[in-house]
Every structure is written in structure tokens, then in C-alpha cells.
């Protein structure tokens, strides 16, 4: 049982859905970002997705791209992203941390070195956007071996024939990308998403979390109703980009969490 498995078991026993929040590590600067991350569990976040900045985030929309650029301009590195996780682990032993980003910074550091550092920092899972199942030998299999969950994205283009391949080495949960598009784009309609979630659940016992296009507490509630939880990223990052205080950002996160938890 990983921290992620424990979290879903607990939520299930409480009859609640999961609220997953994404923030970019180091955005707008290291200290502010750390304060936000430290406040997320208290704001009702069940799982933290910690974005790893990358110069060329080809699956992300402008909101996340700019967040990455701000973080990099502030000197954020892979090491400092791990440091944020270490700081959270000093005060929180239960909230899962999933690192989300692109492969090159990890490949550049070296897979083995990264995995031992991530495990030591208290990371629970990885979502690496540009590593499809076809490239599992790169990082997915070594990560599984190191005890980290490798969480895969399933998308509207993942048809029934391909789904088993996507699910094969996935653990923790499945992240269903509710639209064909980039992060922060069009809103997801729960009526369209429900059959897709059912389609994935017919092939796996893993929890299915839905993300992309969820911006408001009502969206989060509607989506959480038809899945095991909802992810919000760009909407939170937009608040950070607008220069809101840490307290204001966390208040917004709390409203989203309440939405998802009311499902």
C-alpha cells in the first residue's frame, strides 16, 4: 500500500471523492510556492500535484507555460522542487505528492539518481506527460520498482483497444484527461465525461480522477460526482499569476476542495 492507495482507501471509507490540486513548483518564487504547498493539505487537498517546470511544456496551455517560465526565471531546478517536497514531509506524513512534468529534466539528472532522491524526499508518484506506455522501460518500470506510483493519462483518443496498454503498468490512480487539448482549455462537461470514466472503470479497479478544463467549485463537484475525484490546475495557477496572497490562493483552493467534497 502506498500513500496514494491509503488516501483513496480512507476517502472511500468516508464516502468522499478526492480533490487533487496542481501547482507549479517555484511559481512565482520558491518561498511563496513553498508556503502555498505547505497550506494545501489544510485547504482540503487530498493529493498534491507538484509541477516540475520545463522550458518546452508541449501539452500545456499558456497558464502553465507561463508559470513554468516564472519558476525557471526565479532559479527553480529539479533539486529545489524536491526540496519543496522534503519541507512538506517534515510537517505532513500523509498527503501524497505526485510530481508532474516532462521527461528531459529527469533524464538529464539520470533516472536512478532521480528515483532515489524522489523516494527519499517523500514523493509518492509521477506523471510524466511525454512518456507513453511505448516508452515504459525509460522511467515507468524503474519507478514502479523503486516503489513509486507511475500515473498515466488516459484521453478521449485512448480507445478500448489501446486502454489495456495504458493501464498495464499504471498504479495509484488513472488521470483521465477530459478533453483533447492542452491544460487550461475548454471546460469539461460532466455529461460527456461520465461514459468515458465508466469505460475506463470497466477495465481497471484503480480510482479514476478527471482533470483538464475544471475551473470552479461547481465544475469540481459535477466532475467529482461521476468519477473518483477531480483535478484543478490552471485555475489555481491563474490566481497565483494574478499576484493573490498565499491566504487568498489557499481560500480559493479550499472553495474548490469543498466543491469536490460536496459531490
Amino acid at each position, binding site marked *: 500500500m502506498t500513500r496514494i492507495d491509503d488516501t483513496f482507501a480512507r476517502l472511500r471509507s468516508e464516502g468522499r471523492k478526492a480533490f487533487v490540486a496542481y501547482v507549479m513548483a517555484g511559481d512565482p518564487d520558491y518561498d511563496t510556492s513553498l508556503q502555498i504547498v505547505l497550506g494545501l493539505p489544510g485547504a482540503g487537498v487530498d493529493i498534491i500535484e507538484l509541477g516540475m*517546470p*520545463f*522550458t*518546452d*511544456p*508541449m*501539452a500545456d*496551455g*499558456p497558464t502553465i*507555460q507561463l508559470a513554468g*517560465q516564472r519558476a*525557471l526565471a526565479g532559479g527553480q*531546478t*529539479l*533539486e529545489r522542487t524536491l526540496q519543496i517536497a522534503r519541507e512538506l514531509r517534515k510537517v505532513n506524513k500523509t498527503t501524497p505528492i505526485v510530481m508532474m512534468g*516532462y*521527461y*528531459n*529534466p*529527469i*533524464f*538529464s*539528472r*539520470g*533516472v536512478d539518481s532521480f528515483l532515489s532522491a524522489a523516494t527519499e524526499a517523500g514523493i509518492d508518484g509521477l506523471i510524466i*506527460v*511525454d*512518456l*507513453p*506506455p*511505448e*516508452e515504459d522501460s*525509460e522511467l515507468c518500470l524503474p519507478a514502479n520498482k523503486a516503489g513509486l506510483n507511475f500515473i*498515466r*493519462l*488516459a*484521453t*478521449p*483518443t*485512448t*480507445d478500448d483497444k*489501446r486502454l489495456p496498454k*495504458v493501464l498495464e503498468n499504471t498504479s495509484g490512480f488513472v488521470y483521465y*484527461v477530459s478533453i*483533447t*487539448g*492542452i491544460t487550461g*482549455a475548454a471546460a469539461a462537461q460532466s455529461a460527456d465525461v461520465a461514459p468515458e470514466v465508466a469505460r475506463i472503470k470497466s477495465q481497471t479497479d484503480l480510482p479514476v480522477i478527471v482533470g483538464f478544463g475544471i475551473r470552479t467549485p461547481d465544475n469540481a463537484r459535477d466532475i467529482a460526482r461521476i468519477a473518483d475525484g477531480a483535478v484543478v490546475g490552471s485555475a489555481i495557477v491563474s490566481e497565483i499569476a494574478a499576484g493573490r496572497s498565499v491566504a487568498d490562493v489557499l481560500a480559493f483552493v479550499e472553495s474548490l476542495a469543498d466543491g469536490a467534497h460536496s459531490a
Partner: protein
Amino acid sequence: MQGVTAMPEDLINSFMTGPDEQGRFGQFGGRFVSETLMPLILELERQYEIAKTDPTFWAEMDFLWKHYVGRPSPLYFAERMTDHLGGAKVYMKRDELNHTGAHKINNVLGQIILARRMGKSRIIAETGAGQHGVATATVCAKFGLKCIVYMGAHDVERQAPNVFRMRLLGAEVIPVTSGRGTLKDAMNDALRDWVTNVRDTFYCIGTVAGPHPYPAMVRDFQSIIGKEAKEQMMEAEGCLPDTIIAAIGGGSNAMGLFYPFLDDKSVSIIGVEAGGKGVDDRMEHCASLTGGRPGVLHGNRTYLLQDGDGQILEGFSISAGLDYPGIGPEHSWLHDVGRAQYVAITDKEALEAFQLCCQLEGIIPALEPSHALAHVMKIAPSLPKDHIIIMNMCGRGDKDIFTVARYLGFDMKI
């Protein structure tokens, strides 16, 4: 995976068998894309495999290559250049005489015919100097397809004539301001478009990079250059060339010339990267092989310009067509196994070659092949007179006259 195992050249039976089923050339290449795109590139691979063995596909290509592009392009003996250099015989493969003025259309034609077979109605492309964008806009106009070209805002500014050409041809040119607004950012935005418009859109990549099957497919379409050159050289000299040389940004004109010669072991192969202001710690160059290290970007593993933390660096070159921080994965492999040699030429050296070519041969070359020519100028004088060099004159310089005028301090008022 990260350690590069150099394979002694004589242990490899053929250099022409790649990529493998995973789309790899050794450790390079692959399919590093998001799940949304994965089914699309698998379908593209399947359709390309069918087309590749379909004689009607190649019959259509051959017809259009001949009647629309103007192939075969001549293999031209550059007599005055040869005399001036005083050593090896210099031949130029004249792909700058193609319709639209560069080798880019060889590949675009193949991809657009494939897109039509796949029933795609909307074509997207990225472009740096604008040559691939113009070629794509051209072929889309010919077939009545909707064409959207992503171009870095910085390049839109420095390549204004090509932007206007694309618009005349009916394409929509979208200036890319994300990142730093250059070719790599244009490629990011084209990929974002593709992820968003998966059903009707075909992504026409302009070079031998990107996820499998693009590097192999683009190479196959560009290989017409090397195939023709080989036949034409047999006709002209009754033998193979001793050295073949081409400029490299992403590396499509070079791969096109090199590929048919890979197993001719007597032929030495040289790729010329853009050395910008010099390949050193300032990183003001685009020499991915000479000054980069392996990484993963835009769907493939290849040599990249990057910092110590795996963040991608911007290249710098006077030539917008070479201004890319990566290189096709097959070049990375040829570099590591030692089958091809890669060198860098600075902006200054390329500009000298540009001017000399105008004066001695009456050919205004693009800045990209001027890099290849500059290397010819370096090595030809000390080679014997019976040594034969083919350099790929992959584009004409009309698009570059403003850049060169600026460099030479010539005030061009129009």
C-alpha cells in the same frame, strides 16, 4: 540508457536498416509524446507503411516531383569554384532550383499526399526561416487544403517576405509568442494545435525530427536527393563521390543526401552545423552535436542544447533555418557510431562562402547551404584534384538578401 555505446563501424552490416520497431536509431529517436497524440502517430505509422509499399503512391509522387517541383535537380560541376579552391572537384546538387526554392517541398509533397489518403482536411506546420511553411502553403494551395503555419514571432519579423508568400498562398500564419518565439516554440504550438484538433488535422513536420515515424518518413521523402545525386555522379564521372557535405539544422536535406550513400563505405560523409558566433560556453550557436548532449524534446531522444538541469537552450545562428536546439535522431546515431562526421561553421565563415558563391558561380545560395559550402572551402584546397565532393545546395538565397545586406552594411530601401 544514458551512456552512449559507440559501435565500431566495421561491426555494422548496414547503416540503412533503422529505425527499429520502437522508432529507435540506437538509443535515439522513439515516441516521447503525450497519450492524446500516441494513437495518432501509431495510425500515421500504419498508413505510411501501407503507402510506402503502394506503387500508386510513388507514381503520384514521381509525377508531381517531375511536373510540379521540377525534379530531377541538376548535379552541377562548379568549375570556377573548383579552380579557385585549387583542389578537389566541387559538385553542387541544385535543390535550390526546386519549386519554392528549397529541398523542403520534396518532403511536403509526400506528407500532403499521405494526408489526403488519410482523409485529413486541415494541415498544420511549423516553420523557422519560412521555407517549410512556404512549401506547405504551396502544396496545400494546389490541393485546396486548409493550411495553418506556426512561426516564432521573432522569425516572422526577420523573414517578412516568406510570411507574405505564405499569406498569398492562402495559409494562415500564426506568430508564436510563447517561450521565446523561435522555431522550437513554433513546434510546441503546432503540437498543441494537433493535441486540440486530433480528428481532422495532419501535422506536416518539416525536418527529420519529432516522434517516430516522422524522422524515417521525412528521410525517405528527402532521399530522392541522394538517389539522384548517385545516378548523376555515375553519369558524370563514372564513380561515387569521395565526400558528400550538407548543412544541418534539424537535418532533413543532409539526411536526404546522406541516406543512399550510408552503405558506400568509400564515401565520407560530413554534416555541417551552425556554429553561430562560435561553439563555446557562451552557447551562441546551434551545433547540437558539437556542443550539446542527449536529451528528450519534441517526441524524440537526440542531441540537444540544454543546461545542466535539462532545460532547453535557445540556439543562435544568422540562418533562421538552422536555428533549432535539436537535430534529427538518425544524425545523432550516425554521429555516435562514427559513420558521419559533424563539424561547425560560424556565421562569419558562412557569409564569406555566400558571397564567394555569388561571385564565382552566379548562384545566390541560402545561408543554410552557405554553411556547407564554407566547409567545402576549408577542405577542398588540400585535397587531390581527383577527389570529388558533392555539396547540397539545398536552398536559394532570395529570402536571405535582407539579412546579408544588413551584415554588409548595405542600406536596402524598398
